[in-house]
């Protein structure tokens, strides 16, 4: 009948109006500066560098391989390799970045740098309140601002951090296994060499 649709529509809005006072799903507004809505686990904003342990610069996982710099589509990463080496998470000596700058005003959060990094050292952060009044250099962040601990990574992306830790642990295990195998092979070779030299030289005769 004519007018039925209008009545149904008015009933729906009345339900919305009254329901907004009692239920949360009919009033989903978050009062922004005082409250913030929680972000989902896959949220991403801008990259950051992961470090293990307590010292940001000593524990930095990045080895300045410059793969992320080359793969970055808008070329917002700038890396300068160091001259010396420092030990990484496996104990081996690696280069480290003397300068690692990201221009956040250029970065488009495509996550390609994260996908190509072989060392699990650059990940996406979830912080979005980065406004600054300086429009020429205010969004150019260096490695000291970019370095955040692995605990922070575990807090913002628990599943990804667990995967990353597992991958690194496997690397460590592999290295240790290789080292042990190398050590064993060396020991066996040394033992064989020693046996050979003992056999090659018969027992000395003493006059």
């Amino acid at each position, binding site marked *: 009948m004519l007018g039925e649709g209008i009545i149904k529509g008015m009933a729906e809005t009345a339900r*919305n*109006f009254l329901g907004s006072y009692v239920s949360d799903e009919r009033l989903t507004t978050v009062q922004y500066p005082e409250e913030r809505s929680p972000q989902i686990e896959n949220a991403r904003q801008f990259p950051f560098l992961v470090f293990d342990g307590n010292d940001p610069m000593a524990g930095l996982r990045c080895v300045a391989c410059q793969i992320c710099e080359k793969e970055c589509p808008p070329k917002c990463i700038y890396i300068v390799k160091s001259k010396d080496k420092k030990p990484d998470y496996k104990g081996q000596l690696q280069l480290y970045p003397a300068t690692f700058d990201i221009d956040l005003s250029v970065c488009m959060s495509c996550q390609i740098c994260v996908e190509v990094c072989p060392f699990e050292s650059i990940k996406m952060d979830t912080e979005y309140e980065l406004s600054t009044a300086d429009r020429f250099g205010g969004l150019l962040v260096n490695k000291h601002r970019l370095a955040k601990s692995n605990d922070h990574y575990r807090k913002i992306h628990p599943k990804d951090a667990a995967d990353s830790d597992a991958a690194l642990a496997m690397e460590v295990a592999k290295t240790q296994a290789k080292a042990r195998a190398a050590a064993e092979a060396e020991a066996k070779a040394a033992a064989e060499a020693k046996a050979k030299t003992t056999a090659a030289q018969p027992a000395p005769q003493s006059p």
Partner: protein
Amino acid sequence: MINGLDQIFVTLKYWLVGQLANVLPASLLPLVSVLLSLVPILVVFPALFAITTVLERKGLGRIQNRYGPNRVGPFGFLQFAADGIKAIIKEDVVPRAADKVIHFLAPVVLVVPAFLVYSVLPVGRNMVAMDIDAGLLFFFAVGAASELAVFMAGWSSRNKYSLLGAMRAVAQMVSYEIPLILSTVTVVMIVGSLSTVDIVAKQSGYHAIGLPNWFVFTPWGFAGFILFLISANAEANRSPFDMPEGESEIIAGYFIEYSGFKFALFFLAEYLGLFAVSGLAITLFLGGWHAPLAALEFIPSWVWFFAKLLGLIGLFIWTRGTLPRLRVDQLMNFAWKFMLPMALINLLAAACWHLIGAGATRWIVCTLLVVGFYVLLGRGLMAGKKLAKRVYRYAN
């Protein structure tokens, strides 16, 4: 009950006039008396306008699953002060090619009739500013004068969109004036007088079952009330009839080129017009300042009037939040093909009501007449249209 709180404003006015009679010469007293009647109108209705803007924004917000403004003042209720200050201190931009005199006069010519019409609305018992014999005619005459101001505003801006919006607005207002006036003619027929005070007085008393004697509880009165409300919505250019000023359609229609205080005046005139037709609807159909139940008569009459006014304003806000905007041809078709025939049938039903004496027959006859024609018209007008859910050939 009857006196005391109910007549507090009337006694206050007479006391004031009495006090001033000792101070002022006798020739000025009529002027003072008139001013004392008018100043409350000039104070109360703009205050109501201010509250309504906030209530509307918050109401629409809740309908749309969000808060309204809630930062300025407690729960955002001082938002109108912020808006007012903004409107006053904004720069008044007048386009270089605009017709300056008419551009300046248009808001004035719009606001003055908007205030004038309040003088015939009975706000409470003995509380009407002017008891004219042809009060209803005065209301419509002055209301019609505001259409010229809309045209002046649109034309003087020398802007295509402005002129287009003004033409559409005038066409809409003229088309919806006819069902508006025809639905009030039914009330005039039954009451036999054009005076608003008489119309309210005729709706006093209660039926046997406790229902008040208001005209909205009769078949022709109910139909007339609905027709009147729809036409009032259209006259006030409010959604779903706000094609002339729709933001997404024609930017702001006839008041594109107005900024600052003149824009606030247009806004004020629109809302004042809305309050005025709501007040008239209350006077004609909802029994004016009468209480709905005999037991509630101790509440003062002006409280009832404003309660009903707020109820109608809430209804308008609710409608605005629900219905999408009508296209201009849908709007005109609705006025001329549906509202006008329904208004004429309503007139016939009211005549039957009056000629058939009191009793059950007239209820049955008039209800059948009104409802029957409503259904027939609805079926007839919707027959040729394909209004089923759209089916796509490839997208499915």
